């Protein structure tokens, strides 16, 4: 059955319309979880507010389990679902640069649009920076194409790389997440903050 557009159950235009609807859900959940506030987002790095960690990992696990169960029930063909390709050098270097951008700017791209949608001027300026950063990458593409394209590994699953089945890896991820949630709850009582 799924993915609907790949199996031509819906048309390309319906797919784009549903993208808009799914986007509304995405933005609504991000904003109501507090992701429109850079001070809440940055809190995870100082322990006073760990909402990012909780929402992020709960979402990743819910999505992962949902896909595994949908596949088990025959509702989705996972071989037709896009798995992000792995280029190790650029994945690490890109992640490091993004992490630096995160702690300096207090937002990531998705959350900055949420912040801007409720009137955060700092989020709007961050978005301006995003466009500039993407443009710099685009204009100087020849300079970093080497590292960008280096170390292509195809699209391996982390479970395969570790020699585990998807289910066992999923279970391990849940256990790790639960442990992190424990630490997060503890951190919030250890480094509490007033209203911000």
């Amino acid at each position, binding site marked *: 059955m799924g*993915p609907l557009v790949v199996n031509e159950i819906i048309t390309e235009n319906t*797919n*784009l319309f549903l993208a*808009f609807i*799914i*986007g*509304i*859900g995405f933005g609504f*959940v991000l*904003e*109501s979880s507090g992701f429109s*506030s850079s001070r809440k987002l940055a809190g995870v*790095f100082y322990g006073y507010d760990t909402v990012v960690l909780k929402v992020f990992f*709960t979402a*990743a696990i*819910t999505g*992962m389990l949902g*896909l595994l169960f949908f596949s088990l029930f025959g509702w*989705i063909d*996972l071989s*037709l679902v*896009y*798995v*992000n390709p*792995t*280029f190790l050098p650029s994945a690490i*270097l*890109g*992640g*490091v*640069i*993004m*992490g*630096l*951008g*995160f*702690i300096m*700017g207090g*937002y*990531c*791209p*998705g959350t900055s649009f949420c912040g801007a*949608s409720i009137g*955060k*001027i*700092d989020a709007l300026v*961050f978005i*301006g*920076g*995003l466009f500039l*950063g*993407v443009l*710099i990458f*685009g204009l100087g*593409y020849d300079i970093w194409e080497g*590292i960008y394209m280096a170390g292509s*590994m195809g*699209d391996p*699953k982390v*479970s395969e790389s570790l020699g585990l089945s998807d289910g066992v890896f999923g279970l391990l991820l849940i256990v790790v997440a639960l442990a992190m949630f424990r630490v997060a709850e503890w951190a919030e009582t250890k480094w509490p903050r007033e209203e911000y």
Partner: protein
Amino acid sequence: MTKLKELKKTKYLNPYVGGVLLGLVLLAANFVAGRGLGASGAIKSTVVTGMIAVAPAATENSGFVGEFRDSHGGSPMKTWLVFQMLGVIVGGFISGALAGRLKLKVEHSPGITSRRRLIFALAGGVLFGFGSQLGRGCTSGSALSGMAVLSLGGFVTMMAIFGTAFAFAYVFRKNWI
């Protein structure tokens, strides 16, 4: 006072409930489109469109535009992530309106000025924008969506983003605490 504290605590969604809902949105995206959520991809679409519009001849040989054209047919603005990001703006606005959070302001720690906050927001945005291209997606597209489909790259990028932010938290602490 306790009541006020209670109110403050409950004005946002419980994070675990929010996480499950976000996971369901992510599942819906995969079920409908065979791909996860994203954000930086929409910015890339816009930048590519702008580059083509401003300097059509110069972009003819651009590796960046060429690579984008290879992976996306048709108009760069008629892509899944552009429509999804338009939805994000609407969804964020609706949630903010319902919760009474619509307000024009520069949000910053009382210890720093608005000016300092905006300079760092701009610099952080530039870095995040650049990094999202090098890393083939941001926190949404690469880390979150990648993790749900168990992509090795997704996990690596996620650890690099959060690990680096943690590592530099001390350096930039004045901005936040």
